[in-house]
């Protein structure tokens, strides 16, 4: 249960940004609001509390965008965590060998590339709106010249795609093994 520091406007984010200091939390709120990223100041529940007694509730799905935004404005934060459930992002990566192509699956995202050329053949899975955008940007490019999902994406789906991308790059550089 949260102790809300302002009137509930119906926003339910599911994610919490934890800060060392109250000043940090207030700076974070200003920075995110300036960029149009929805958030609100809350008191974190005791089981998640680290640092100060003030945190920002955000839409958890926007974790990568929030991290990038706060980082670019030098707003230091401790962590971004879900308000319920496990706090660890999925680390599991699964690989399928199609012969001439390899498919790497991370969470709900799959990236398939040509073993020899490293060209991105397909991206499938996911559901957030940056995925079709990344699909269009990355398709038909060699992995080492394709944009990195973490740098262009905004959502947790793009973070999973980034995991698949990093693993794909490693497999390709090892000769498709």
């Amino acid at each position, binding site marked *: 249960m949260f102790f809300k520091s302002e009137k509930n406007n*119906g*926003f*339910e984010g*599911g994610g919490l940004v934890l800060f060392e200091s109250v000043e940090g939390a207030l700076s974070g709120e200003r920075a995110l609001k300036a960029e*149009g990223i929805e958030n609100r100041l809350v008191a974190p529940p005791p089981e998640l509390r680290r640092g100060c007694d003030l945190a920002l509730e955000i*839409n*958890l*799905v*926007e974790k990568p*965008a929030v991290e990038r935004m706060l980082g670019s404005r030098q707003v230091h934060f401790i962590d971004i965590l*879900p308000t*319920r*459930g*496990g706090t*660890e*992002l*999925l*680390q*599991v990566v699964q690989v*399928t060998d*199609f012969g*001439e*192509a390899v*498919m790497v*699956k991370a*969470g*709900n995202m*799959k990236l*398939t590339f*040509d073993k020899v050329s490293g060209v991105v*053949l*397909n*991206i*499938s*899975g*996911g*559901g*957030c*709106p*940056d*995925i*079709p*955008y990344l*699909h*269009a940007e990355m*398709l038909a490019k060699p992995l080492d010249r394709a944009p990195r999902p973490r740098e262009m*994406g*905004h*959502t*947790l*789906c*793009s*973070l*999973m795609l980034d995991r698949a991308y990093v693993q794909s790059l490693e497999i390709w550089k090892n000769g498709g093994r």
Partner: protein
Amino acid sequence: MLLICGTAPRKDLPLTEGEAILQGDTLRIGGAEIPCTQGTAALVSAAGATLAFLRQPAPRTLLVGDDGSGKGSRLLYEHLIGNLPRIAPQVVVLHYMLPVMGLMRKVSESASKAKKRPFMIADAAAMYAAKAAGIAREFDLFTPDLSELAFLADPQATHPAYVSRHLFESDSSRIPELVAAAYAHGSAARTLVVKGSTDHIAQDGRIVERLAEPNIPALEAIGGTGDTISGMVGALVSAGFDAVTAARIAVRANRTAGLYAGATPATRIWQVIETLPRVFADHLDKWARQAVDRKIERSAP
């Protein structure tokens, strides 16, 4: 009328409403051109191909540009919240959009204000939002893949990236268990179409169909092959098929389209979609007859 709502991978596309037409690898809607890649463009294209074959009106489409920032998605949510009762579609498919729990709840409330609540289908992040907001049971049909089914089965997760490891690592042999958990936690729509190497169709907590042929493993790699199933299901329901029959025909058509396209991991989704008229011409009558026979079998004492 079938209404399809989602985002397109273009930053500059305003909220655009109209009939969409697939020409080669490009979807044209309201003067805009959108590449037919993974996502709502693939869903719209497959729905359009299905309805055209059935000589039904083209789907009405609400598309907005969004690169993931959520700005376009929020416009779409607001439009639906304000206008769904007036539009009064028979079937709604909600698809790629930033999952925002509070807004999805309001969309569902708005749908209930229509004279007759539409048949509500959610796939992709619209499904994530519905589940995370705790309103999955207000929906008629979800189309998860195995990783998304694990998300539905995890009562705490608000996005598939935070699913419990033991659920995520489930193989397809555990699908019945995951389906049961999703229904038990109230995280499933009335009908689930679980897309995978073997497609499973479940209704009211019970698996009613498993389909594995033709087996085209490359389909899993091709971006958009889940979207096409959702588009075809929506089209078939709006044409009068019941949910299970529509799902059965859609997954068979998808697999057969993969066969006709000679699918490889490098195949593009529009190449699969362009075979659909041939797939339906060759098989739809037979599949529809089999569906009637199965219904008679099921209703026999």
